């Protein structure tokens, strides 16, 4: 597959080139908005990639993934508020707290399955939302402004928009590589096996609960990193970033892009956010178009964008 220049692989390559060249476009045209939009896209794509690991490959329908965005973001925000600006402290803390949260939530939630799992992850994320909204010292409902971005050593300066974009992009590529390696490893095969038939996997001796929990924690940690990035991007954190509808957005990205494909969520993030931008340019009431559009994707295009691109491949017979 990788060696063919299929329509899908060509699109992936084109998108990668576009992502890499966005800052060049901005410096040529002076269109800073484009750079900021794509920074956001890249960060949320990373969150979606992490969700895809458990949703697409593990079959764990977590509806609380935005909680990690908030937790990672607040770790940076709170430390900055308390005067600790070093990224070498902030980011590991963001990762650690996200991992711990994922461990506790995962340990409880993975005892349940199906729709209970969807709802319990949703409810725990809402719990985190209310806890954060109740932190009066850190702005409560109104959120917390971050005065200074995370500080790293000399040449690296996150306040530089181009540098920050490339940091995000590098981390997105690293996340993609990590997920790609994971899903092709023995570990990845076990969680995919558990998705297809959990009982059978357990019967042949795999403690699937532990495997799934590890997957859940990895996904949460990765999303926590995206949260730390988004806090630096917006210089602001608020409970709204972990509201349950944000988790819905992440699920949309994964499904829109194509589940069970490592690169799919990147398609999804780009498509959703560019679509939002384009539709909101047409009408103030753009969600009236987006909502039914989602419904149509669910009803008629299960494979998402990745699936459509694979369909366009003449060498692959559909349904084979």
């Amino acid at each position, binding site marked *: 597959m990788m060696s063919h220049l299929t329509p899908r692989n060509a699109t992936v390559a084109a998108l990668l080139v576009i992502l890499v060249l966005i800052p060049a476009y901005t410096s040529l045209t002076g269109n800073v908005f484009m750079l900021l939009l794509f920074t956001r896209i890249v960060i949320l794509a990373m969150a979606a990639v992490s969700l895809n690991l458990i949703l697409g490959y593990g079959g764990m329908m977590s509806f609380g993934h935005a909680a990690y965005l908030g937790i990672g973001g607040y770790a940076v925000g709170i430390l900055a508020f308390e005067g600790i600006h070093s990224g070498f402290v902030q980011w590991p803390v963001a990762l650690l707290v996200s991992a711990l949260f994922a461990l506790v939530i995962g340990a409880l939630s993975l005892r349940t399955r*199906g729709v*209970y799992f969807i709802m319990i992850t*949703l*409810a725990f994320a809402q719990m985190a939302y209310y806890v954060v909204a109740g932190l009066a010292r850190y702005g409560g409902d109104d959120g917390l402004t971050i005065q200074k971005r995370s500080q790293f050593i000399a040449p690296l300066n996150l306040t530089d928009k181009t540098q920050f974009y490339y940091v995000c992009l590098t981390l997105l590529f690293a996340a993609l590589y990590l997920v790609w390696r994971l899903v092709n490893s023995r570990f990845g095969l076990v969680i995919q096996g558990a998705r297809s038939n959990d009982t059978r996997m357990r019967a042949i001796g795999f403690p699937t609960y532990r495997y799934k929990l590890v997957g859940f924690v990895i996904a949460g940690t990765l999303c926590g990193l995206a949260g730390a990035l988004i806090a630096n991007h917006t210089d602001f954190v608020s409970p709204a970033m972990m509201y349950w509808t944000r988790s819905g957005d992440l699920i949309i990205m994964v499904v829109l892009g194509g589940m069970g494909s490592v690169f799919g969520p990147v398609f999804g993030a780009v498509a959703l956010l560019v679509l939002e931008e384009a539709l909101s340019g047409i009408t103030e009431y753009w969600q009236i178009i987006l909502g039914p559009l989602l419904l149509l994707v669910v009803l008629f295009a299960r494979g998402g964008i990745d699936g459509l691109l694979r369909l366009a491949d003449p060498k692959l017979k559909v349904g084979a």
Partner: protein
Amino acid sequence: MTLFIEQCLNGLQFGLLLFLLAAGLTLVFGIMDLVNLAHGSLYMVGAYFAATFAAWTGSFVLGALMALVATLIVGMAVEMIVMRRLYGRDHLDHVLGTFGLILFFDETVRLIWGPEGMSLPLPSWLNTSVTLLPGFDYSAYKFAIIVVTLAVAVFLYVLVMKTRVGMLIRAGASNREMVAALGVNIKLLYTLVFGLGAALAGLAGLMQAPILTVQIGMGENIIILAFVITVIGGIGSIRGAFIAALFVGFIDTLGRSYLPDFMRLLLSPDAAATAAPALSSMLIYLLMAVVLVAKPEGLFSQGGK
């Protein structure tokens, strides 16, 4: 002491209101195996209809009745246009599809009624207080909510347990294919059940409307509580939803009013003031976690799901 009774009644009122929402959710899930995130939108639509019709007719009760019928119709239309196509599919499809519906409903409401929100004023005969015990007055409207929701709960019990339609509903919940195979018009049954759930959500919305403002997104907050209730009660169980709703109503209301005082006994006033609001909003989620650790399928699971 009177304050405590009042808070208990508030908890009861809130719990019963949540039951209306959770009952619809759990019915729809139990029978159609459908996760409906857009249930909160029907709650919102009910409130908007009530505010509009009440202003139109000048009568609160008439407006409420018209809103109830209108929400029922909207619910059945949604079932026939959208939901019907989602049955039998993956839960993830339900989540996404109904999430799309939420966006659609929110924006449609914004388009029709504008972004400001509305208010539904109470008529003077409800805007008073009733003397329940000597020396203890309670808001007449909240008392009316308790009476109405209890009546609805009894109605639901009779409907589900004692009528032929209820028998089909229960049969549908335990084995859909068999019911269809026996020649029951399952399509019609589904439409009716979804419409009933929508009407219950609309009723909850329109009753809550005079207490809170009618605004876009009002359903998105409360629907999570309804989900928590269905999970605690066991998905598909109306009895479980009823008990869990009361639990959640009491714990949430009493937690919010007494936890700050209680924590002041244990912690410094500063720490208590910071921690109490966060902890009291966490309480019901902690309850859910405890229930799920003990019984992963909820308290009154129907089993087999």
